[in-house]
């Protein structure tokens, strides 16, 4: 098992027992494994990295090789109860496309991402250097991240795309931040649905 990630706790609370769950960018399958154990979900991971795919198979979870940049072609509308993307959205080019796809195949989407507007990140920029932190562990020259956005940016994107923010929790290194999350939180976890 890799280090326990605190967004898992939040995500788990939003999943009902026995749900059909799709985990995009499932890595070594730890979240799915956890959800299978505590929520008895029928879960499927999606990975395109062969090493992570292998790790998921070793972990005993269902994993499907797919390039998320091409969407979720082949999956039926509304099949899943929840489609999860944990700390991967910032590493995708087709941001709007994948959000649309998640809400096409899932009743709800769960998305977590590092907040580039976190005060330590802002401070780092003010000091003239790109931020490196627990939530942004890479250097600018080797980061897998390709989209750099804040909680406020994401809220605006949801608004623009008619995506309903049903719940949002923001954390500072594991501690829930209720006030000024865009300034004080390093990671945000969203529960999203379709408007109307």
């Amino acid at each position, binding site marked *: 098992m890799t280090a326990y990630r605190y967004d898992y706790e939040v995500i788990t609370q939003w999943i009902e027992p026995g749900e*059909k769950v799709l985990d995009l960018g499932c890595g070594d399958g730890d979240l799915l494994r956890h959800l299978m154990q505590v929520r008895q979900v029928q879960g*499927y991971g999606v990975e395109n990295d*062969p090493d992570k795919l292998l790790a998921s*198979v*070793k972990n005993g979870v269902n994993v499907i*090789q797919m390039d998320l940049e091409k969407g979720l072609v082949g*999956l039926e509308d509304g099949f899943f109860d929840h489609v999860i993307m944990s700390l991967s959205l910032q590493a995708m080019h087709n941001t709007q496309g994948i959000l649309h796809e998640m809400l096409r195949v899932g009743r709800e989407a769960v998305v977590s991402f590092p907040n580039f507007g976190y005060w330590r990140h802002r401070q780092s920029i003010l000091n003239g250097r790109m931020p490196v932190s627990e939530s942004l562990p890479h250097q600018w020259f080797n980061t897998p991240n390709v989209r750099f956005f804040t909680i406020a940016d994401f809220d605006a994107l949801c608004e623009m795309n008619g995506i309903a923010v049903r719940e949002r929790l923001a954390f500072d290194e594991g501690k829930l931040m209720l006030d000024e999350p865009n300034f004080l939180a390093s990671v945000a976890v969203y529960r999203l649905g379709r408007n109307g």
Partner: protein
Amino acid sequence: MTKMIPPQSVGVVAPQRAEFTEPLALRSGGTLDNYHLVFETYGTLNAERSNAVLVCHALSGSHHVAGTYADAPHNVGWWDNLIGPGKPLDTRKFFVIGVNNLGGCYGSSGPNQINPATGRLWGADFPFVTVEDWVESQARLADQLGIQRFAAVVGGSLGGMQAMSWALQFPERVGHVAVIAAAPKLTAQNIAFNEVARQAILTDPEFHGGHYYAHGVVPARGLKLARMVGHITYLSDDSMAEKFGRSLRHGRNTYSYDVEFEIESYLRYQGDKFAGYFDANTYLLTTKALDYFDPAFEYGGNLPAALARASADFLVVSFTTDWRFSPERSREIVYALLHNKRNVSYAEIDCPAGHDSFLLDETRYHALLSAWFDRIEV
């Protein structure tokens, strides 16, 4: 001189033969009143009889899946790189079975065997057999061996189709299924290639309506052409370019129909070799079995409906450069299983060798199979 058997080999093996006297009703309408199957086994069946794995063969394969023969040490099984002690399909854990399919030419009842009813070779009179018929006959072999349930059924290409059909015909008798480089049905293009191969055989003057044995000849030219066409489709454009490119045998054009380009030499060699050991009638029957396979047909083409019967845990594997059984076809199987809430994992292996990739010991591919077989509890 002592022949060294490499480590991780199942070593010297010997085929066995099973007789069946209960008539087998075939999908084509015919019946085989009695028949026999030739098979090999590797490893040991455990006391609970829960560790058996059936390996299904493809178009030109046989029951000789792993190991070598005492009298033919260079005759290594066709999937020997997968099966053995310490290999992905580990014979220290599993009891592995390879069967020559009905209609085959390696010893099981087929065109080149004696028809018990006439005392003569079956030839073209051997009935059409389908993937479903093969699975039925394999289940009867399992009965004879005292295997109620397979831990896994695995296969590549046409073998993958049999593995899939196992999950549909005997859902309670198979725990895991690996479908590798296969498809839920052939495309029109795929059937077209098979038809060219068949026409090459059927129009060979020495085919004699399939009763060439009686004439003491074989339709070698037709079989050679069939294999040449097939071989082109098993390789990728890139692998052919890398292996042969436009290399010239004589370093220049000779303006003749003899071998000039190295690819011509390769194809002719492969075709001649194949025509020397394979049976034309078996080739015809087997390509038809490929063409007929379409479990969704009786469900109006609805593959998810067809796969609803399956309960096994699936592994589906495709190869990026396989254009004969492309990754898209494998994904159809994956999504159909997923939409039935079945356990399924899917990997698309980046390998340049085309359809033939499934027979190679590509590192990621075998690591994946190892991990998957490790998961299977026996």
